[in-house]
């Protein structure tokens, strides 16, 4: 069979066999590539590789095949001889228990030795594969020290004692973290802090201004149309020892001397201040940026130290960028004194570079060096050659002349690692395979190295770089005596970080705590209040939502700090670093979790739909608390024109009114049924609500317009008065207004109401007539009542439907109020119509449930059992089939009329009882059994079918 042929749908097995066949073909090809004959040491072995291995699986596969082994792509447990793995999970350990599981070294060593080594030495068992231990070897010196210490039984220095002596001095006390507000003070005087923030701020500021001037969109593309005709040309422009040169502008007398910039004025040999910048003369004598002034002084005794001049730097930086904007097509600001630009490829790079240098020299009297290359990497490398005060073009081939440490992003540790591999120059890297680089440095860094070594770098210039992290670290003057000080310090630090976060309008998701703890054998730091020799610790926590809340940050940080259980006196530095930043205004990002779209409760939506009109007079009379509450709950609209003397007309949503009317119904029921459990429900619920805040779910009294005047009139006089009094509210005169009372008052009044109800039970005026009237409303409507078409379907509807103007009280109302009530009524009508159907039944059910709750729960009601049509006592389709079969079998000549009648009738009955399915099944079966029984039967079958059809049509 041809493995390369097409396969059909569903032929997965074929697909797999084909695939394996193709893989074998591939292997054959691999075998053929072997340059010399290799000993077939793996002959007869069938090897499967599981999981990550070093060297990678593909390499192992190649080796296995070259050495005559059989490589298994899919584990065939019956034929596999060895399984290669580096690590096995517990489950896999169990799974492979019966196999020879070895680590890849077995293969590699065997190949090296040119013979098959015993596999047992390379065996992988569950235990061995657990995380391997790093073997620290104590240097002899350390051992000795330890030994000495042990001998002397010297205890490690007590942090407490150290701190005590240090903090004894009042200056120290003021300038350490013991002092509240230390963090602020620290940052306001920290030189490094100033430098770093100043640099980034100034950069941002200048760029922003220039962008505006030159009409460039921030972060966007450039005003000039980019010409893409020629090669890409990137220039790296860097001031030569920026701070020092700027400082020398006003100090021409120092020009020929070694100069360094630092914040100490008198350069003492023991000064521990750092040098920010030094000129080339100083560099010649071994002074380097970042060196302590003291050390530098030792190397170069003539070194002159000059102070920072931030304003000057700023001015020069501005000129610098302005100049560059004139030349650049694209610009990436690196720092105040350093930038990358991209220029049109068709211009002569060296000429442009000279122009730039001349322009800058002219404007600033400072020298810049320019590195030119086809990409960022090469431009940066070229700068190294260009310095000082020069320019250099570096092409792709030249990259090999550099040493690896010159490459960007390659620090000392990488350099060391590369040196271990025997790589020191870029040319060495060039000779190394990508897979090797990647296996040693990881896929990304490996690839980067690989490409760098070939001068490949396709990073575009970034106009604006996204901020990655925001942090605040303090490691000077950190001394604590007790936990409160630590806590306060953490709070302050969190405060500081938050400020910075807010400054860049970001929120962070990940909080990292960095702790410097005094090395237990270290004494007081040589630098005053410095951190001295320390151990670094760090811990981080990821939050679900990005935050810029100082309290939250402080809490997390403090928790993490506590988890170390360090002695507070040993703390020498703390830092908070916020990463995974998100933009503050980007809400969609901040709230990642989708919101459930709860449909707002009916009530609240309705409330919103009906802006509420309130008489300002009455509204003003209400206590302020109540006013606020009303404002919150309703859209209150104070009409500007005063309405006659109608006091308050606050419309409730119809929904609420309905609820309310239910309550009034309930009340009526209560009066009728003294023992009704529902009444006690009301009682308890209102009792509860007296203590608690009045909850919104409790029904309110319905507005006046919703009160059935008929039922009101039917009430005993005392009760009616009560109700009327309720509605008149505060107003002593009986004015029938729609009063929406504040919830609390309502609550009280409801209490009153229910109280009054209970009192009215004993009222003698509860006449029989009233009782009957009320009781009748309680009767469940029966079917006929409910669907009497001429009458409105239910009691509930009756109360609601009757327009207010039919009541006797109507005439007594003032005209304005009548109009209002009419408007109300119309609006409610609309809503009611929409909901009437659902409501009708729900209401009925609610009522039923209430009735039922006192007695028993309604279980499934037995329905009248339908008489299923039977054929000779059989109603199930199986039974019917048997009967039909027997019938046909026993009358081979044809059906007798009497029997036929029975069957026809049965089928008709089936149709009548809507069991068409069964009828169909029966007929289908009948056709089947009569198929070979002759024409008579077949005709009868057709007749049966016709019968059913006719019956169905009828």
């Amino acid at each position, binding site marked *: 069979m041809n493995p390369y042929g097409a396969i059909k749908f569903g032929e997965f097995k074929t697909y797999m066999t084909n695939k394996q066949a193709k893989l074998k073909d591939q292997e054959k090809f691999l075998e053929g590539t072997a340059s010399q004959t290799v000993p077939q040491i793996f002959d007869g072995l069938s090897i499967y590789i599981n999981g990550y291995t070093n060297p990678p699986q593909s390499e192992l596969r190649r080796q296995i095949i070259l050495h005559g082994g059989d490589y298994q792509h899919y584990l065939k447990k019956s034929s596999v001889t060895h399984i290669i793995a580096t690590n096995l999970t517990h489950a896999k350990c169990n799974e492979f228990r019966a196999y020879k599981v070895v680590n890849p070294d077995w293969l590699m060593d065997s190949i090296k030795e040119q013979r098959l080594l015993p596999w047992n030495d390379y065996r992988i068992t569950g235990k061995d594969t657990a995380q391997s231990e790093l073997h620290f070897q104590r240097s002899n010196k350390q051992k000795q020290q330890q030994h000495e210490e042990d001998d002397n039984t010297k205890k490690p220095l007590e942090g407490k004692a150290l701190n005590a002596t240090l903090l004894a001095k009042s200056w120290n006390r003021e300038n350490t973290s013991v002092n509240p507000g230390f963090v602020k003070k620290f940052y306001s005087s920290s030189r490094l802090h100033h430098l770093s923030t100043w640099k980034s701020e100034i950069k941002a500021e200048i760029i922003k201004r220039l962008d505006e001037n030159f009409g460039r969109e921030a972060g966007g593309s450039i005003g000039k149309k980019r010409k893409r005709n020629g090669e890409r040309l990137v220039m790296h422009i860097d001031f030569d020892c920026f701070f020092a040169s700027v400082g020398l502008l006003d100090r021409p007398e120092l020009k020929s001397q070694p100069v360094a910039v630092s914040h100490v004025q008198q350069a003492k040999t023991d000064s521990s201040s750092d040098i920010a910048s030094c000129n080339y003369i100083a560099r010649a004598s071994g002074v380097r940026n970042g060196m302590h002034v003291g050390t530098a002084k030792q190397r170069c005794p003539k070194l002159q130290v000059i102070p920072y001049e931030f304003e000057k730097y700023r001015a020069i930086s501005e000129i610098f960028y302005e100049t560059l904007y004139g030349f650049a097509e694209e610009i990436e600001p690196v720092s105040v004194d350093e930038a990358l630009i991209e220029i049109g490829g068709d211009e002569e790079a060296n000429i442009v570079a000279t122009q730039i240098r001349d322009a800058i020299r002219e404007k600033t009297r400072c020298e810049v060096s320019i590195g030119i290359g086809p990409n960022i990497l090469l431009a940066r490398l070229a700068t190294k050659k260009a310095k000082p005060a020069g320019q250099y073009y570096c092409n792709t081939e030249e990259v090999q002349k550099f040493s690896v440490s010159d490459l960007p992003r390659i620090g000392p540790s990488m350099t060391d690692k590369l040196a271990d591999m025997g790589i020191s120059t870029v040319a060495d890297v060039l000779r190394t395979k990508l897979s090797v680089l990647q296996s040693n440095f990881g896929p990304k860094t490996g690839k980067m190295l690989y490409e760098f070594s070939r001068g490949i770098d396709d990073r575009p210039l970034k106009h604006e770089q996204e901020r990655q992290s925001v942090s605040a670290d303090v490691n000077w003057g950190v001394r604590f005596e007790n936990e409160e000080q630590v806590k306060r310090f953490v709070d302050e630090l969190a405060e500081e970080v938050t400020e910075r976060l807010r400054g860049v309008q970001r929120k962070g998701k990940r909080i990292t705590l960095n702790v410097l703890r005094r090395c237990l054998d270290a004494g007081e730091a040589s630098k005053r209040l410095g951190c001295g020799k320390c151990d670094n610790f760090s811990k981080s926590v990821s939050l679900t939502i990005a935050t810029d809340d100082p309290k939250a940050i402080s809490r997390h940080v403090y928790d993490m700090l506590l988890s170390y259980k360090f002695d507070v006196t040993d703390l020498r530095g703390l830092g908070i670093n916020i990463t995974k930043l998100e933009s503050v205004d980007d809400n969609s990002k901040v709230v990642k979790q989708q919101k459930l779209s709860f449909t707002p409760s009916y009530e609240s939506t309705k409330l919103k739909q009906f802006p509420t009109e309130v008489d300002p007079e009455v509204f003003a009379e209400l206590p302020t608390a109540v006013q606020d509450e009303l404002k919150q709950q309703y859209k209150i609209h104070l009409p500007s024109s005063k309405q006659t003397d109608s006091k308050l007309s606050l419309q409730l949503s119809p929904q609420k009114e309905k609820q309310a009317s239910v309550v009034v119904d309930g009340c009526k029921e209560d009066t009728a049924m003294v023992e009704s459990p529902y009444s006690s429900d009301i009682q308890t619920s209102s009792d509860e609500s007296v203590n608690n805040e009045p909850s919104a779910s409790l029904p309110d009294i319905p507005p006046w317009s919703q009160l059935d005047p008929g039922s009101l009139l039917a009430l005993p006089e005392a009760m009616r008065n009560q109700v009327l009094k309720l509605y008149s509210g505060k107003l002593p005169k009986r004015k029938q207004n729609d009063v929406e009372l504040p919830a609390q008052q309502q609550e009280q009044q409801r209490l009153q109401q229910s109280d009054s109800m209970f009192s009215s039970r004993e009222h003698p005026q509860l006449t029989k007539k009233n009782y009957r009237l009320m009781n009748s409303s309680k009767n469940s409507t*029966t*079917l006929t009542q*409910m669907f009497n078409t001429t009458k409105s379907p239910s009691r509930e509807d009756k109360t609601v439907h009757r327009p207010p103007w039919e009541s006797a009280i109507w005439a007594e109302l003032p005209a304005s109020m009548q109009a209002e009530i009419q408007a109300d009524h119309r609006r409610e009508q609309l809503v009611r119509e929409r909901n009437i*159907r659902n409501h009708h039944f729900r209401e009925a*059910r609610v009522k039923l*449930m209430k009735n039922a709750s006192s007695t028993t729960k309604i279980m499934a009601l037995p329905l009248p059992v339908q008489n299923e049509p039977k054929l000779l006592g059989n109603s199930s389709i199986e039974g019917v089939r048997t009967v039909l079969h027997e019938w046909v079998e026993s009358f081979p000549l044809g059906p007798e009329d009497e029997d036929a009648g029975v069957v026809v009738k049965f089928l008709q009955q089936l149709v009548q*009882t809507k069991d068409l399915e069964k*009828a169909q099944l029966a007929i289908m079966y009948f056709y089947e059994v009569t198929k070979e029984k002759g024409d008579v039967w077949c005709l009868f079958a057709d007749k049966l079918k016709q019968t059913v059809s006719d019956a169905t049509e009828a």
Partner: protein
Amino acid sequence: MMISRQDLINLLLDFIEVWIHQILYERELYPTAIFSLKKKYDVPVHMATHEGVANYISKFVESLQTLLISGNCKFISLKIMSPMNNRILERFVFEIESALNESNLDIPLDTILDSEVTCSLADIQQQLRACLLRTAGTRSSLVNNPSDCTFTLGVETYSGPPSSTHQQIDWIPTQSDQQESQQHQRWNHIIPIKTIPMDLFKINVFVIEAMKKGKHVSR
């Protein structure tokens, strides 16, 4: 989960709506574009998204509720008519036999509506799903209709016109299907779709196809 008989009615109404939509789609009464694929009872169904169509159906179904509760609904029919002469080509019938119609019921209606149904929700849904699937399956046994067919929805009651508490629903009295078919209709065959026993109701769904549908197409 307890479902009451009131819920059962709502469930049924729900289903009828879907069923009608499904037929409209299957019989190609509207362009396919106005239908969107939805899921009901775990089967894909096509629901018309055209506002007019959807409203018409939902109002029709809405108005069925009172009928169903009173047990006055004999059957619902969806008639597909030829564009040329309004001859009925297909009639989808949703027969409902309701226990609520039994005259010997002396239990108050609310009590019945609030009582629990005797079968489980899952069973009912399974039946309804089967019905939907089989309705969709009728496409294969029915002859194609000429294009531009129209349809009407009708209800046949046991007694009198449906009582309407809503103003929106205007029923039009019409000939009963029975009379109609006796007059000038020759049915080719009946395709039973499904019989669904569900507590209060017994549903019988089938479709009747007219004779010589094809000739009309050619004419």
